[in-house]
């Protein structure tokens, strides 16, 4: 499996947070930027990485209209290491690896290039690396999500967003199982479970685990462990009612009870008109309005991050 951050030599490296969530326009980049500012203001060293391959706009949110170096220089071989393309921002302690202009090279990243990026991320001299992932459940997005110390799913309280989040979780979990040992046994047991060897339709990861346990106990135990250490969190953005406030906890419970996959509730961010304004003004709202409801919620979320890393 892609486990570049989990070996001992990397244990001194940065905490890597991946922000994804399936649907576009739910506020992944806004959260990434504002979380980065909050952590930097705590005097921690932060590198934001715009891994929204083909749809990058973190630089715009941070007010850097035309980044001179981007991931495309790195992937194209013009820059030797990720450290060479890290840009300073106007906020001390906060730096950016931009994904601007990276469409051609980045959208179809080869797996060797992806592994190289993942390894270099762990070598960056920083306390936190925040990956802003693109929308959708493509393999690049899933691999960055799974290789992080914790994957953060951003959802808005709308059926389409919640649906996309579950689809993302399912896809990411399936990909994690592909990388989990004993691979062959798991693949064989999955195949038999899918063919109905458990004697009933397999509807959720929970059913799947029960079926696989019957077919192959060793594979079943590995799947169970993968589900329990999935290392993902939900953040509900644009909450504007009491039921929205409960959504993150309810999704966490639904994941546990229905899928059997550990996804915890990291926090809830309110609807705040200042957020939209800040994007237009190209300056993170926690910087311009540190006492607005959104900024307060991002700070609370940042404090929830402490101790939330996987593995």
């Amino acid at each position, binding site marked *: 499996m892609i486990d570049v951050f989990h070996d001992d030599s990397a244990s001194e490296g940065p905490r890597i947070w991946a922000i994804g969530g399936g649907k576009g326009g739910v506020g992944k980049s806004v959260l990434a930027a504002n979380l980065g500012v909050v952590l930097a203001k705590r005097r921690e060293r932060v590198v934001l990485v715009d891994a929204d391959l083909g749809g990058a706009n973190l630089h715009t949110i941070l007010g850097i209209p035309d980044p001179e170096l981007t991931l495309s220089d790195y992937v194209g071989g013009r820059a030797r290491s990720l450290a060479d393309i890290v840009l300073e921002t106007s906020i001390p302690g906060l730096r950016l690896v931009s994904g601007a202009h990276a469409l051609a090279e980045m959208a179809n990243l080869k797996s060797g290039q992806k592994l190289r990026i993942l390894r270099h991320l762990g070598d960056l001299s920083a306390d936190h690396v925040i990956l802003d992932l693109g929308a959708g459940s493509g393999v690049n997005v899933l691999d960055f999500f799974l290789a992080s110390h914790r994957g953060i799913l951003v959802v808005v309280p709308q059926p389409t967003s919640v649906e996309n989040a*579950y689809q993302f979780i399912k896809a990411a979990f399936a990909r994690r199982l592909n990388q989990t040992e004993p691979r062959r046994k798991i693949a064989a047991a999955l195949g038999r479970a899918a063919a109905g060897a458990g004697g009933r339709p397999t509807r959720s990861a929970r059913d799947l685990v029960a079926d696989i346990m019957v077919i192959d106990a060793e594979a079943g135990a590995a799947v169970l462990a993968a589900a329990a250490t999935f290392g993902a969190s939900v953040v509900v953005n644009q909450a504007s009612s009491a039921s929205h406030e409960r959504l993150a906890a*309810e999704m966490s419970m639904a994941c546990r*009870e229905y899928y059997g996959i550990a996804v915890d509730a990291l926090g809830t961010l309110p609807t705040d008109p200042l957020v939209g304004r800040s994007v237009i003004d190209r300056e993170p709202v926690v910087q311009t309005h540190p006492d607005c409801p959104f900024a307060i919620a991002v700070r609370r979320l940042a404090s929830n991050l402490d101790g939330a890393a996987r593995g």
Partner: protein
Amino acid sequence: MVEEIRREDWEVLGIEPGADLEKVHRAYHTRRSLFSPSSLATYSLLRTEERNELLARLDEAFMRISNAAAYLASAKGGSGADDELVDEALAGLRTPTDLVGDPGAYLRHHRLVSGLTLEQVSVETKVRPNLLEAIERETWRLLPAPVFVRGFVLQVARLLRIDEPEALAAAYLEKMRLERGDD
């Protein structure tokens, strides 16, 4: 006699066996709302028949636990509406897994599940209620010599139709010997 609580009832509610009434209610209402057709968190996750099945299981589990708790509380001379008695009754429903380590709790559990009060057991066994309580709570200093205790435990175990009364009595005496320091 009411319908017995099943082990999976606690799992359906996602709480520890023997949780208090407030936890039971909270767990029930949280899951009712989670599985309701208007829930955003389970929209797209559950098909209608799955949703209905989950809700039905939830309702059954909740009914069995609350009915049993109310029954046990009323059997203790209180009312089913007396929260404290209901909580105590629920606590008694914690299934002791360890007959050897917890023989007193094991007896108490089986008595509560049978819906019998200490007084009712006393009528059947001719053992005084406060002595029965001391046996259940393993209050060693209130208990007579081992040979009598053995007789009482056997009588109660048989009354409650516990599978192996001899094994339970032996475990009870062994624990008493170790903790009280009898020969």
